[in-house]
């Protein structure tokens, strides 16, 4: 049996609204992600996708149910998971290399080890020529690649990604998807990927989970039967993509919104 890297068991999250009554953001979340799997979550805006990731990272506790990472109950932020957001959140006073070392520095790793890890990852992310540059000297796509290197540097069991490419232009986005797909396939990392982009979800993942309107629950699991995980660019052009997109559009009621 393969190892369950991330598991949600009957998870519900409620917030207190401004008026004081409880608002249920997500409810009855029951799913798991196995080792090396890449799973995307897709759903209407405000359905609680980010809430789900926050619970996975241990930043927000679940109101009901339990979240497990590597078989351990998540109660607070832990070194098993690493976060990547839409904003690169690089620190402007650190060089690219120092930014990549950030997570390792928090964990008190020795300087030499940090440097070696950072340089290796920056090479993989094709940023070797920019290690000593400051973030403001890099383009948006390069900055997001540096953010990916920073996420990978702590060698997390699970990567949690909250629309990491949604702020980029279409071409840059495809290049970064390719980078991410290749890196995930090479390292065998497990990832949970939140996105708005249907084709992005299909191109990058083994499975796509579809969430409903708030209170968000998982209404459908779509298994993407396209080979070559390390090459999202090729997967994008696969003949099955159209069918999956149509299915997702129907589940999300996208055409009804136009009518």
């Amino acid at each position, binding site marked *: 049996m393969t190892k369950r890297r991330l598991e949600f068991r009957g998870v519900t999250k409620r917030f207190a609204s401004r008026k004081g009554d409880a608002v249920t953001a997500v409810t009855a979340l029951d799913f798991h992600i196995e080792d090396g799997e890449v799973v995307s979550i897709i759903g209407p805006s405000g359905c609680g996708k980010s809430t789900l990731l926050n619970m996975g990272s241990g930043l927000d506790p679940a109101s009901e149910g339990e979240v497990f990472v590597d078989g351990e109950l998540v109660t607070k932020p832990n070194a098993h*998971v690493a976060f990547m957001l839409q*904003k690169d959140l690089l620190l402007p*006073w650190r060089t690219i290399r120092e930014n990549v070392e950030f997570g390792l520095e928090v*964990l008190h790793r020795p300087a030499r080890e940090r440097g070696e890890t950072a340089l290796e990852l920056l090479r993989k992310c094709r940023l070797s020529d920019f290690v000593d540059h400051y973030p403001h000297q890099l383009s948006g796509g390069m900055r997001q690649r540096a953010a990916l290197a920073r996420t990978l540097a702590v060698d997390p069991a699970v990567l949690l990604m909250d629309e990491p490419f949604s702020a980029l232009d279409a071409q840059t986005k495809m290049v970064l998807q390719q980078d991410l797909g290749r890196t995930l396939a090479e390292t065998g990392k497990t990832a949970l990927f939140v996105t708005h982009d249907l084709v992005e979800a299909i191109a990058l993942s083994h499975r796509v989970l579809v969430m409903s309107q708030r209170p968000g629950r998982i209404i459908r699991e779509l298994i993407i039967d396209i080979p070559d995980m390390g090459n999202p660019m090729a997967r994008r052009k696969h003949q099955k993509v159209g069918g999956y997109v149509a299915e997702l559009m129907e589940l999300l009621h996208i055409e009804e919104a136009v009518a």
Partner: protein
Amino acid sequence: MDTDLSDPLTRRMMALSGLLFVLFIIAWEWLPGLMKIPPFIIPPVSKVWSEFLRMMASEHLMYHTAITAMQVVVGFVLGMLLGMVVGFLLGMSPTAEFVLSPYILALQIAPKVAFAPLFVIWFGYTVYPKILVAVLIVFFPVMVNVLGAVRSIDPDIVRLAKSFTASRFQIFRMIEFPASLGPLFAGLRIAATLAVIGVVVGELVGGNTGLGYLLTFGEGAGNTAMVFVSIIMLTIIGILLYGAIVIIENRVLHFMPARDRRGA
């Protein structure tokens, strides 16, 4: 301060600046005479220079300058440290900020130099009232800027650090402190000029040392040139302090594009 000296345009502008200085000195020397302005209103530059030499020889000008400079620097450093500590503490605790903000605002609105006589009553004709005025005056721009900087940190950066299991102290050391440096230096540049004002007002109110004392002494003696010399020396102290801040700032904030730094 990032001026490129090899740029011909920059050099021409610098030459123009120098020329303006020479013209100013010439005008100062001869214009008052030509316009029949008596020397006790505006003494010519040569008179001010000879007064400067006289004060060096028989008024302990350097001693008084050193006293004033010491008070400015000590007041500045203490005010800065206090401003930073309070700025960070309030920045980290919204409750404390909410509770204290009306009092801080009131104290900020109160003209700090008006406290000088009070401090003289408390501490007598010593260096302490002058230092205290400088501390009070430097405190606010530093505190307000540091507080604002801590407040404007993107909460997602802090969440990211937390997800990397950063401790409270690590968040301070690796995020909040470095993030505050830009606004801190902007505050310090304002504070540098204000610190000199604070000390001089303290000296004007009471005491027998410092350039403020020489200023009132010159005034009482009807020695306009002496007043001019004192003002120039005070300006030089201010320029040196400001220059030191800018040099340190350029070292510390080297990661920022020069344009952003000046706008800070």
